[in-house]
């Protein structure tokens, strides 16, 4: 692991420890009260979920067309993180919605498309695990289609009248809420980067193991 990993991990942990204080200090939202504070982790997780899907898609495309194993490892790592952060979004969202909308779930466009994108990421992992030979390319093809879903998820909430808040909410946040939000975004971005690096390291070690076994067989 590179030298910068541990210091950055320590900084990230401290940032996460600090973020609840910023969140507690932010103003209450007028209609939703306390439960709205889920927003400060829900939104960054959603952004990382989408960014991770894009990283997976781009890495998959480069793997498909250039064939470098490095991109394949990156795609695999990004797919796993898409599942992780997608799970966080899809659990924190309904917990918030239960109070804010009165229902756990609604089949509106953004929720449906997000759930679908999450399932594509799961399918990627299933294919890699159980697909047998050639599954890396299969999964790469799948990831490309999954990436096509991401812009759809993001803009859907602006074009369909839906119960989910549109993207215009974020730029109009007051200062203290904005500060808590952007700090949480920074926490999650750094965490995503660190987890990605760690997961890619695992893939690299696995590749090293494979090549060791291969060299033994010679």
């Amino acid at each position: 692991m590179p030298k910068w990993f541990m210091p950055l991990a320590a900084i990230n942990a401290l940032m996460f420890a600090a973020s609840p204080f910023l969140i507690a200090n932010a103003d209450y939202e007028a209609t939703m009260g306390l439960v709205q504070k889920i927003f400060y982790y829900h939104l960054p997780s959603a952004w990382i979920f989408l960014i991770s899907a894009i990283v997976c898609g781009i890495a998959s495309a480069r793997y498909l067309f250039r064939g470098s194993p490095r991109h394949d490892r990156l795609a695999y790592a990004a797919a796993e993180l898409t599942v992780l952060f997608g799970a966080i979004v899809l659990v924190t969202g309904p917990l918030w919605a239960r109070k804010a909308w009165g229902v756990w779930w609604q089949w509106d466009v953004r929720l449906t498309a997000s759930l679908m994108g999450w399932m594509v990421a799961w399918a990627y992992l299933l294919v890699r695990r159980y697909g047998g030979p050639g599954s890396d390319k299969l999964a790469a093809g799948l990831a490309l289609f999954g990436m096509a879903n991401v812009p759809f998820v993001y803009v859907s909430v602006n074009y369909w009248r839906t119960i989910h808040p549109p993207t215009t909410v974020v730029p109009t946040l007051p200062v203290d809420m904005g500060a808590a939000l952007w700090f949480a975004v920074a926490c999650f971005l750094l965490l995503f980067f660190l987890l990605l690096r760690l997961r890619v390291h695992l893939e690299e070690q696995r590749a090293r193991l494979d090549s060791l076994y291969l060299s033994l067989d010679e």
Partner: protein
Amino acid sequence: MRAAVLVLVLLTAPFGAPAFAAGATGFGLAGQQPDAQPPKPVDEFVPVSQLPPQDQLPAAPLLVSAYAFVWLALFGYVVSLGRRLSKVQGEVERLESDIAKGTRA
């Protein structure tokens, strides 16, 4: 490397404490602050237990569960990653020492 992962895992642990502290302060604040819904004009005093079920839903358990889930998911993932990594690295080291010794287990 294993030490690195272990340190990362331990450092995420204190994250849990402030989260619950904030939840508790939130609790306290919620007690002082009136429920943010602007009160509808009523003719008479309506006890909380008679409000429609939606207004009665306490927000704190939802908030705490949400943050707890985030923490658990991230922590669980880091632990799983650490375990997989140590397993693979153990095997790599074993193989490398076997090759160095010129034998195969």
